[in-house]
């Protein structure tokens, strides 16, 4: 029976095509899963191996000598303040730069150069940022190996994150709103501060959270600019516990601490290594989940 006799039955050629399509579809799904399943398995494995040490004590105690015992409080605090200071440095510059590019910049070569500069900045390898940090902050500005130098390095590294998020958030505000305001005699800045910015906050916030995540997880940029394997700081008093570091002193950080305990010290108990890894990845996953949740929630509250 040819296809002409039975118009809605597939010919053998078509049946082969359908089979091929089924196979391809299964393959695609398989590759998507091939990514996710191993990763999830590995992460679960991390936590399982870390279980022996994970406890509130682990979080709140300082690392013992050589990090073989004790907890991760000092590295955790170091990461916290690194994030805080770098965010304080990069957020104003990045947000204002995003405002400039999207709202004020004329359509000329200079603007294109700025866009290219932001892209280039995003492509610089993290170790090169470390070298830059050494040359510019540690040496030339005389900050030495310190929290400040490392925070500055991270700030420069995350400029593109904030700028891009800000630009996208601003661009999502319809042009019609701005034109309506301009026609009423409002200046560009008035329009921005009353209509454009308030309606971009969610997108900008997403960028901020992304910066926090990068700053918490990166190791290379802080390698020579301020992170150290151990510090001689006592956290006996309460305020020392909460603010253990000075801006001009070296510090411990979770990411670097993981590097140290994983490779540099012989005889390190397995659980301690996994413990640090588990806490770090939990931190990153929590931060990013907050960002995703925020985005979904804000999308449901759209004003137009």
């Amino acid at each position: 029976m040819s296809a002409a006799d039975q118009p809605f039955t597939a010919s053998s050629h078509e049946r082969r095509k359908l089979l091929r399509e089924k196979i391809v579809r299964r393959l695609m799904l398989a590759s998507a899963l091939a990514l996710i399943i191993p990763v999830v398995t590995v992460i679960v494995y991390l936590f399982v191996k870390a279980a022996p040490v994970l406890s509130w004590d682990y979080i709140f105690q300082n690392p013992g000598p050589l990090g073989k015992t004790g907890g991760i409080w000092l590295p955790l605090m170091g990461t916290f303040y690194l994030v805080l200071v770098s965010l304080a440095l990069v957020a104003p510059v990045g947000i204002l730069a995003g405002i400039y590019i999207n709202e004020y910049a004329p359509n000329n070569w200079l603007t294109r150069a700025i866009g290219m500069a932001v892209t280039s900045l995003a492509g610089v390898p993290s170790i090169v940022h470390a070298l830059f940090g050494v040359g510019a902050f540690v040496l030339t500005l005389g900050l030495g190996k310190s929290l400040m130098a490392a925070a500055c390095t991270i700030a420069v590294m995350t400029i593109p994150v904030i700028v891009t998020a800000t630009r996208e958030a601003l661009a999502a505000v319809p042009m019609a709103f701005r034109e309506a305001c301009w026609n009423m005699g409002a200046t560009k800045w008035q329009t921005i501060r009353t209509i454009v910015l308030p309606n971009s906050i969610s997108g900008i916030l997403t960028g901020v959270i992304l910066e926090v995540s990068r700053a918490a997880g990166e190791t290379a940029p802080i390698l020579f600019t301020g992170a150290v394997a151990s510090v001689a700081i006592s956290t006996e008093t309460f305020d020392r516990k909460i603010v253990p570091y000075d801006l001009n002193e070296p510090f411990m950080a979770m990411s670097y601490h993981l590097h140290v305990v994983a490779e540099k010290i012989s005889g390190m108990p397995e659980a301690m290594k996994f413990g640090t890894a588990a806490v770090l990845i939990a931190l990153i996953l929590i931060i990013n989940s907050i960002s995703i949740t925020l985005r979904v929630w804000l999308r449901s509250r759209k004003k137009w």
Partner: protein
Amino acid sequence: MRAVFHGIRVFGSRALDRAEPLIRIIIYFSGWSSILFVAAIFFFIIKEAWPILPQVNWGEFFFENRWLPNPAEGNAPVYGAAGILYGTFAVTAVSMCIAMPLGLAAAVYISEFATGKVKETLKILVELLAAIPSIIWGFIGLVIVSPLIQNIFNVEIGVNLLNASLMVSMMAIPLIVSISEDSLRAVPDSYREAALALGASRWEVIYKVLFPAAKNGLLAASMLGVGRAVGETMAVWMASGGTESIPDEFSPMILFERIKAMTATIASEMPDAAHGGEHYMMLFVVGIVLLLISVIINVVSDLVIKGIKKRNA
């Protein structure tokens, strides 16, 4: 109480408006600052390497595989970086062989086949995957994958080219997936509908219509993946074994050789390099090479993406 709030709002409003000229200046400077920072990066890295630049034996640097900053007694240090360059190249090549097909397939699945909740979930998972920092991958490579490789393939060393490439590909894949998915999404539905109406199967639509239409974006995705692979530090460092060598013959066994990438070289040797010394400056030279490669890749792929945006607009 409300009057107080109102008063503050009015005052703030008036103050912000009166400060507009100053605010405008600050905004303009912030905008131009990114150019400043890029220039600064080039400046400071070249500055640290400056004294040695005229004396660098570039032939030796690029073609000799002897990186000996601290040779035995009596011998002069040699900075032949061919092995290190090979290391970076090899990791990039192998990781791209893994990441590009996988990433593209996942992107196609998410863009063309997945729907609703499944699609949302997959996209979120890709985002979370992208967030996993380099050091975690390095840790996984060192502690989990290394023994696995040793057991499965019956080799002595688990930290090698294969391990490092696997880890780097896990970092490049989310990038490739999200950019490829964006460019596939940008292809108008009318293309798909027209092809389907002509009797094409879903696969044919993808292969014959979408890929050609989205090829710029897919190309850009690959390039950015390459850029990521070249610039990766911690994952490569911890999973790669730390010895540079260029294999004599091209066999699958090279996957199990130790390698050393440019990024890892800088990271591992910098703490020991005497500040201002020859070794120190040569490490900055490696940094310059890295910087140039990454910036070129990023700028070109950005131009490619802009090419598509202009066409879609």
